[in-house]
């Protein structure tokens, strides 16, 4: 894959190369910037170190150093993006004619900029399986319980592989069975076997939590009788892309090549 990298010394060159590469290549900057958004709402993002990306379809993303969601973004095709130099600083300007919204990102310093000639025709075909959900919960344990600290995934027991294992702040062991679908009485029974197994082997208090999309009443009864907990996790909200999957090829792939 071809790529061009720049450092902070040549802002003019970055603006020129980005303008040339716009819509053809992936444009990436690590740098310190602030941003002003003017539209239905107005916002000002103070200066900070950011990861800035413009994809080949004009999608613009500005990420901070934490968190899943970008600090600011614009969907591809919403408006043209310009790369300019103003008083020695790189300025990225967008304007969305439909809503008359504008975004201006001013880079006080560019640590590194890269232009990738990226090719990717593949689509994500497996996404949102039960193990993806377990992995996601391992990374975001607060969804299950604010005191839950995961220590292991796919933990082997004589009764099968336990999805998640961890501790709470009292030092109790927490064992978790993860289901994408609605919980069944069999899931509760399986969790009960894990709890009994760990209580016997580790000789400490063990909390059992069943994670599922929803809990029918009869499953709740089984959980309550056995002192097990239920946590509802709407996986569709965690993996929203599943329901509105888009075709992965674009129509311009069928234009006659010169």
């Amino acid at each position, binding site marked *: 894959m071809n790529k061009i990298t720049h450092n902070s010394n040549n802002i003019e060159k970055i603006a020129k190369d980005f303008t040339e590469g716009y819509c053809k290549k992936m444009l990436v900057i690590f740098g310190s910037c602030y941003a002003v958004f003017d539209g239905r709402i107005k916002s000002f993002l103070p200066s900070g170190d950011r990861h800035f990306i413009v994809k080949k379809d004009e999608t613009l993303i500005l990420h901070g150093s934490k968190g899943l969601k970008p600090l600011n973004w614009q969907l591809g095709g919403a408006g043209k993006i310009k790369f300019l130099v103003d008083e020695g600083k790189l300025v990225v300007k967008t304007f969305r004619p*439909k809503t008359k919204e504008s975004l201006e990102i001013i880079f006080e310093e560019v640590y590194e900029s890269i232009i990738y000639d990226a090719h990717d025709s593949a*689509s994500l075909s497996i996404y949102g399986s039960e193990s993806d959900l377990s992995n996601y919960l391992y990374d975001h344990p607060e969804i299950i319980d604010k005191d839950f600290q995961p220590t292991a995934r796919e933990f082997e027991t004589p009764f099968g592989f336990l999805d998640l294992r961890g501790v709470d702040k009292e030092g109790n062991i927490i064992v978790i069975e993860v289901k994408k679908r609605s919980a069944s009485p069999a899931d509760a029974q399986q969790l009960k076997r894990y709890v009994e197994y760990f209580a016997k082997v580790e000789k400490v208090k063990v909390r059992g939590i069943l994670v599922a999309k929803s809990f029918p009443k009869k499953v709740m009864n089984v959980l309550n009788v056995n002192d097990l907990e239920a946590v509802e996790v709407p996986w569709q909200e965690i993996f929203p892309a599943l329901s509105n*999957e888009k075709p992965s090829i*674009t*129509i311009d*792939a069928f*234009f*006659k090549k010169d």
Partner: protein
Amino acid sequence: MALRMVLADAKIWKNIIESLTLLDEANFIASERGIELRAMDPSRVAMVDFFLPANAFEEYECSEVTRLGINLDEMIQIMRRSGSSDELIMELEGTTKLVMTFKGQNVRSFGISLLDLGESDYPAPTIDSKSKIKLTADALQQAVKDAEIIGDHIRIVTDENGLTLSASSETKDVKIYIEKDSDVIAEFNVREESSAMYSLSYLTEMTKAIKASELVMIAFSASMPIQLEFPIVAGGKLTYYLAPRIET
């Protein structure tokens, strides 16, 4: 620069504009031939290709090729204010404003600013479609509506005997079979059995063009874009292209 286009029935233009919901904004190009538009939707999965010839208009005057950058939402809102027996006059005022006048029992003029959308001239996709079928737009729309309550995608299969449209999800499925001798089919030309899958959300938008047309020509091949061509009653045509869904 002079541009003046008069349509005896404002409804013709209203139906056309309402068929362009895949686009947010677009460059119409007026020339002495007529008015045309070719644009991709923002996700670049679909393309619209539209042409209305000068002779479809009651009066048509265009002194030079003119680009009209239009915010389609704005234009739809205006066209929805047209009355059933209104005449429509579209005129360029200066270089940045289009005036749309409805002439009926009274005269109402709306002005909209033109957008500078830059030049974006796309070629039409090259497709050698192995299956070409002309059928009533209503039959296609009904099939799309049937499939829409079932899934996100529609599969279209042709063989020498007819056309099958189907959709499925985890718990439901539907199959619509149209025989080649059916009354809803006007022309049937299948050179090779073809099967391909397309996104229903796009097809739903595209079949809205039904108001502008009675017949539609479907053309496609396995794993190639589908082309939906709606002839416009007043003259000209509206063509959509939709990229196939890759099957894994």
